[in-house]
């Protein structure tokens, strides 16, 4: 049975520091994708995630177990990404190194083109809209989770998501990823 985040936090605070690894394993992908979509750069995202986890570890005793651990961790990760984005160099294309190695060259090109187009379109959204898309589609969070995370009503989440998708659609259409192309 999977242990709850809060139980793991208690173990870490009780001196079992290595147990923190479970939390890293559990959330590194979500945080990395969040950072990657905010920053648009593989290395910057990795640094941001690493720093976020270290800050979380360092401040673990301030975590209020009345709230969800991921919500708390997410805020640290988001702050770290935003801080990094203020200092970062101009946006680079998203690294495609992580693409499935089984893909053929033609398929790879198509996927890379689409990924680049999506990332580029995302980067044109304001942070408010970008983070809502990231949380829904790249972190697989429900509307309710997103609402809790951002401290906004669920209706606002839906409304922002609706607008963000429309804006994305327009950006993608301008980039030649037409509606028909999908």
């Amino acid at each position: 049975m999977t242990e709850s985040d809060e139980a793991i936090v208690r173990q870490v605070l009780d001196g079992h520091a290595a147990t923190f690894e479970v939390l890293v394993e559990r959330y590194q992908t979500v945080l990395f994708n969040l950072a990657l979509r905010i920053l648009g750069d593989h290395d910057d995202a990795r640094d941001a995630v690493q720093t976020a986890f270290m800050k979380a570890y360092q401040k673990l005793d301030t975590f209020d177990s009345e709230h969800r651990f991921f919500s708390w961790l997410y805020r640290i990760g988001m702050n770290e990404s935003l801080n990094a984005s203020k200092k970062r160099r101009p946006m680079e294309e998203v690294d495609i190194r992580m693409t499935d190695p089984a893909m053929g060259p033609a398929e790879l090109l198509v996927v890379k083109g689409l990924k680049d187009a999506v990332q580029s379109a995302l980067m044109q959204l304001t942070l408010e809209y970008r983070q809502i898309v990231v949380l829904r589609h790249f972190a697989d969070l429900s509307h309710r989770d997103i609402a809790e995370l951002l401290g906004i009503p669920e209706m606002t989440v839906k409304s922002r998501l609706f607008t963000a998708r429309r804006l994305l659609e327009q950006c993608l259409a301008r980039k030649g990823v037409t509606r028909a192309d999908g």
Partner: protein
Amino acid sequence: MDEQLEAAMNEVLDGTASEEQSHRVQMALAGDTGARQRFEEIKQLHDLLNRTHRFPAPTDIRPAILRTIEARPGGRPRTRPFGSGPWISISRRPAVGMAWSFATGALAVLVGLALVRGSTTAPERPTNQPGPSHFAGTMVRNDGEISFRPLSEERLDIPGGAVVARVLGSERVLRVEISVSTVTESSLSLTYPASERALTRIIPEGSTPGRIDMAVGRVDWYPPQAGRITLEFNVGGLEEPFGLETLVEGATRRVTLATWNAAKGR
């Protein structure tokens, strides 16, 4: 296209539609070509977003975090605010007031040194083992073109010895020289603002400098009984103030080496 219908289509695709919304979309799809086309377009956007999601996290994130955690002498997060409790802070202002002329904004550099004594809490210390080859035996370069000025000097007496830390600064480089002389085992943790990636050089002296572990925002040094290490930080061009938070738990001494705020000229 009716915005409410389009919103309902999104809800259907998100799996969060109410019964009423689902019914409305079904009716529209059954009798309206334009609605069917729009639904397909929205579905394609959802598919595209979902298809491109999730890069795996880089494989080096977890090991790097774990290495840093394992290197912590106390083995657990701190349980009190930084700088309080049994920490003994002997920080003071830089000995020499310097007018730091940076073109942009405020700059604050806070470099802290934590000293841990005793073998019970410190990680295994292979003091006879030389550090990595690129560290061993390197002397501080003679920076003919860089003019360093003394900022502060701290002496920390510990049982069986002392730690002396000198901080020197130039316009773009902060240099920290730490000397240790002790008859007991010790470990030193120097922490600095991690996100700035400001640490540019580590220069241990002597043929057996002891072990040096580096992590994001932190350098741990397990020195021989007498040793010296120099670290350099690139602090030029940084526009925002930043500070230090230490990762060290179980330390018996902490000393703040330098606090630097260009806007205030100190």
